[in-house]
């Protein structure tokens, strides 16, 4: 099974901010705070080299400002997309508050990035910059959960490969060794 090779790591950001930053502030504000939290997340992701899928949870965070979100979300995503990434990792964000989802989306858009986000009730959305066909393919995979390549045309429509390749390279879906397409939400 592909999933056995994945190391699931759940990170409660509100807990992390209190452990990582030299204060007891519950709000995720200011760039240095965001930087400290991101480094703490990266520290938690240090592992045995297995692929990791990490759920970054903002549920208990009251205030999330743009400077902090840029560090915790956008820079984290960008770091693990770069060729010198410390580990193969996939990220999902849980931002139940609508305002947090808005903030996450804005910082992603600024850097032309995208991420999968649980916006409440287990409803996952694609936030950030995503082309129309990519979004359509992602939503179909998200609804299906896991899709064998042979079912691609019937579920995703013809010509789905480029969009799926792009989603995979942006780490918005997981493609297993056999070519199975898996929604990140199905892996956590």
């Amino acid at each position, binding site marked *: 099974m592909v999933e056995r090779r994945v190391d699931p790591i759940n990170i409660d950001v509100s807990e992390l901010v209190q452990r990582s930053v030299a*204060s007891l*502030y519950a*709000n995720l*504000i*200011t*760039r*240095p*705070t965001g930087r400290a939290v991101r480094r703490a997340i990266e520290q938690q992701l240090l592992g045995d080299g297995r692929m990791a899928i990490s759920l970054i949870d903002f549920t208990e965070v*009251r*205030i*999330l*400002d*743009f*400077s902090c979100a*840029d*560090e915790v979300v*956008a*820079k984290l995503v960008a770091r693990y997309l770069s060729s010198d990434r410390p580990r193969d990792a996939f990220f999902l964000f849980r931002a139940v*508050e*609508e*305002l947090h989802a808005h*903030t996450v989306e*804005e*910082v992603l858009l*600024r*850097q032309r990035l995208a991420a999968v986000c649980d916006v409440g009730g287990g409803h996952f959305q694609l936030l950030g910059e995503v082309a129309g066909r990519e979004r359509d393919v992602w939503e179909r995979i998200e609804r299906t959960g896991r899709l064998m390549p042979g079912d691609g045309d019937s579920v995703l429509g013809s010509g789905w490969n480029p969009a799926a390749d792009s989603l995979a390279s942006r780490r918005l879906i997981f493609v297993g060794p056999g070519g199975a397409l898996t929604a990140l939400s199905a892996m956590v």
Partner: protein
Amino acid sequence: MRVVEIAPSLDYRTIETLYDALDDDLDGPVLFDARHLRWVDPNGMVGLLAAARVVGDRTGAPVRISFPENADVSSYLTRMGFLTAAAQVYDMPATKGRRSDRASDVLLEITPVHTNSDVHAVIERVQTRAGRVLTRNLGYSAAAVVQFSVVLSEVCQNIIEHAEAPGWVAAQSYNWTKRLGRQVVVIAVSDLGRGFKGSLTDEHSGRFGDRWGDVTALEAAFIHGLTRFPDSGRGQGIQQIRKQVGRWGGLLSIRSGTARIADTPDWSEMPPVEEGLTHFPGAQINIILPERLSDG
């Protein structure tokens, strides 16, 4: 001793009278004569602090202040924490620098911002009071309290990230019955740092050529979101503040060097750009949020 007369009204509309008064060749001890002050908003208060620091640095001599004769104004300044803050920049008796009693009508007392911890403290402190003022007085939604905190956080960070110098922030709500027929919240932020032109010159002046100056620097940051950092994630603070203040129908202005740029709603007569103002160091940000007329 040279005397700088403070106008009877010192707010975001009249603050230039203060900066203009500093244009003279001040030297030696200086007295800010605020005895006739009858109306002052957060812009006026942080302006008085910044002006004293500028004059003190320029002259190397004591800067003193005569406090308002009007008891209500004096009491208000005390509640806003002006005396405490003034003790750091004015040469005044220690007894004058007594701490404010954190009166319930104050949204955010004058608060020095030096570090990111100060920003955290501001946001922690303002939560309860902002919730009350914004929802009860201004008719904002509960979610707006969080957005207000985000705006406040981002403007305070502007001091630390871009000015690289300390500054002050203050906020208060007013009933602008005659002027607007509505309640408003006024937020003022002032720093004495390098200013927008100073912050952006190394990275961006080349592309503007001879046009480079305070106005173009403000436009670069305000309209285009440029910063001195190569990181593309930077510069969105002001952009997001503009969006949010615009959604609330508010006024946002930034003065730096000899220029001011603003997003002006219908109810404001402030021009979108002013130049040729008296030079004043750093940057001064003014945000005015009006009471909602409809649900939102």
